[in-house]
């Protein structure tokens, strides 16, 4: 069975570009995909993946910024390939299990260097987990946050967010954690999650980086020709500008049992790219994504290259959101969201990525924040409910709300690294 799928994948590799092929493998997942991925790597002489040392990893699981590298403007470069692995407990866990889980994570840290060429990952726990182990959840259960959404909720126990510039690394790490690969990157796994956790639903995958949305869009279809070749995100513009991101300090839990940890919210969205690219022009897209001022003053450029490290929405442009709604008939997504800053600093550290899960273009909007309430506050500012009826509609002219459809939400506690293995047992 596996051999058949491998043959098929090799055939497929001839039809697709190398990068399309790798992304397809990440989306497919499993041993056959990993095997095909490794074959392909071997035949094209890629550099060896650097091994790592657990002692060199910091105390915060979410401390990735120091090793991400920067673009030419000084914005951090997010890791290109992602997998969100959902996990369900299959045992009533005890302290030995906790040691086993920790050993599995440490094995991954030995196998891969602490950077984007190696592996970056976080482990988070849902309210269901805390309920299962009989502890009070430090985070609330997810809820619908806007009037026009009816999302499913992540109800599994834990989730591992795997991130690397190397597609074979995220695939191999996933398989190694669950016991299907014994020596990832030639380092023996001292333990695995097998027997403690099993895979839950849904497995989510994605990618971010210049050119990936275009090439991936070609592979699955449904992505309009108007999407610029070099756009790093499906909406056609850069995102995650340094100035719009909360610092890692800002999103770190400041006190209590999980001091040094953070929270994760994952909002899985379908993006209606057909209307966005075929029924709006560049002016309209810029007005809806940034602000009407950005559109009329041509501040953005084709894909956001004119913006440097800042969208420039904080301050005046954010403050005139309601005036813009009345006078321009349109307000920008970034402009609205910037109203939810505290002392000028954003509340969310975005680690979101594009996806074609379900063969449909979308976004897994994954962010870290000190509390889930910080996410809710920012998301409600972005929804702009109070602005509807005052120059803009519930979703028309109201940022990008007309184009995004919330499918799923999940809340997670990401403990500090020394508590990441089965907390609260």
């Amino acid at each position, binding site marked *: 069975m596996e051999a058949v799928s491998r043959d098929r994948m090799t055939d497929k590799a001839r039809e697709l570009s190398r990068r399309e092929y790798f992304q397809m493998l990440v989306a497919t997942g499993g041993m056959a995909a990993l095997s095909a991925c490794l074959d392909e790597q071997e035949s094209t002489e890629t550099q060896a993946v650097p091994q790592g040392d657990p002692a060199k990893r910091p105390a915060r699981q979410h401390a990735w910024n120091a090793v991400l590298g920067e673009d030419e403007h000084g914005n951090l470069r997010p890791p290109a390939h992602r997998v969100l692995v959902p996990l369900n407990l299959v045992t009533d866990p005890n302290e030995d299990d906790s040691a086993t889980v920790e050993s599995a994570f440490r094995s991954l840290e030995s196998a891969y260097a602490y950077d984007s060429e190696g592996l970056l990952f976080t482990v988070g726990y849902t309210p269901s987990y805390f309920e299962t182990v009989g502890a009070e959840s430090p985070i609330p259960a997810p809820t*619908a946050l806007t009037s*026009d959404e009816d999302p499913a909720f992540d109800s599994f126990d834990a989730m591992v967010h795997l991130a690397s510039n190397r597609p074979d690394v995220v695939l191999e790490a996933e398989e190694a954690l669950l016991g299907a690969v014994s020596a990832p990157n030639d380092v023996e796994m001292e333990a695995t999650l097998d027997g403690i956790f099993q895979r839950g639903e849904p497995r989510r995958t994605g990618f971010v980086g210049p050119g990936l949305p275009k090439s991936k869009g070609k592979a699955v279809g449904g992505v309009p020709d108007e999407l610029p070749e070099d756009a790093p995100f499906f909406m056609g513009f850069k995102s995650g500008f340094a100035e719009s991101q909360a610092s890692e300090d800002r999103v770190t839990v400041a006190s209590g049992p999980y001091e040094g940890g953070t929270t994760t919210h994952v909002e899985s969205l379908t993006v209606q790219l057909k209307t966005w690219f075929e029924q709006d022009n560049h*002016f*309209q897209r810029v007005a809806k994504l940034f602000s009407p001022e950005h559109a009329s003053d041509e501040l953005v450029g084709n894909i956001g290259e004119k913006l440097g490290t800042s969208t420039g929405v904080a301050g005046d442009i954010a403050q005139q959101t309601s005036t813009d709604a009345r006078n321009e*008939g349109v307000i920008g997504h970034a402009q609205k969201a910037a109203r939810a800053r505290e002392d000028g600093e954003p509340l969310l550290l975005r680690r979101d990525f594009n996806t074609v899960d379900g063969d449909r273009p979308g976004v897994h909007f994954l962010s870290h924040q000190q509390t889930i309430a910080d996410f809710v506050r920012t998301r409600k500012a972005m929804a702009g409910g109070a602005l509807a*009826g005052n*120059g803009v509609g519930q979703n*028309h*002219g109201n940022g990008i*709300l007309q184009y995004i459809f919330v499918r799923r939400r999940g809340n997670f506690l990401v403990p500090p690294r020394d508590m990441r293995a089965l907390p609260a047992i």
Partner: protein
Amino acid sequence: MNRRDLLRASGVAAAGALSGCLVGGSSGDSDADSDSQFDSPSPPWSRSNAVYHQAHRKGMAMIGTAQKGDRTIGLSYTYAKRFWTVTGNQTKRVAVEDSYNSIHLMASVWDTETGTVLPVDSGLQVTVKRDDEKLTQRAMWPMLSQQMGIHFGDNFLLPSQEEYSFVIDSGKPTVQRLGALEDRSKDPITAQFSLDFTRSTRNEIPIEPRGAQPLESRGEPDALPPMEMSMQPVAVAPPKDELPGQLLGTGTNADAVVVFTASENADGTYLTVSPRTPYNQYFLPLMSLSATIERDGTTVFDGPLSTAVGPDRGYHYGATVDSIMSGDDLTIVVDSPPQVARHSGYETAFLDMSDVSLTV
């Protein structure tokens, strides 16, 4: 979690009654692709900042209606049509790329008892499904067309000739509601419709004229009249002399007709501003308007108007002021023009709008 009731509309009955619901003129038989032969960015017969008579008369076919609580959702379709989206006063033409398996889907929501078409700021959404597979989800555009008036619409390219279901979620209306509509529910309503799509059924939808010649009055300063529909109301504004209160006057602006009335209420005087299209009297929604009232050189009111809907006034803009007296200078400032997508004949009108003034 706000999982909403799903109403299974009488889709089968509606499809059975389809031939009876084809409206709009004599039926043709050829595969008539609506707009393509006249599909240029700016038709030579278009008129600057004014309404012009469109080139063809086209019918539509009802997919069904579904009553939910005190509201009704109507869903219909016709051939895919070009239209223009509007942001501020800028437009973008959306052409029909592939008309073969395409339809233009149209939804409206109205108050069942009064027949008042409810406003279009609610963010209505449609999910298109084939069996249980979700094909696409859209927040359709609020639109204005000569034959259908205000509706939600968009073009959909269907993958093949088969049965589809359309789940319509009305969204949450934000506009202020008056009179009999005041105590109506504001919760979103959901209805599911089904359509057994075939090109031959679609192509029975009448188009006039069918040949190369357009309607004689194409491009004239005029509009096709509203389609006569038995199953759903059209979003017309009340005639000016039927609006409640005293008629203060009318003005025109970028071809919009703006009617002003004043009526007394418990808090003072209610100023009604009712902008509508010429010829068909469709109300113009999603505008931002402000008003100033000057009396003997002193400003006695200066503020935004809010949007409201009532059975007597329809959709309009209004404010309660202390008083309006004979000799007052009343000025309406258009902060932004109607943010609705436009079908042919409306794409240049009601965009570059200036102030409208009158002396009471």
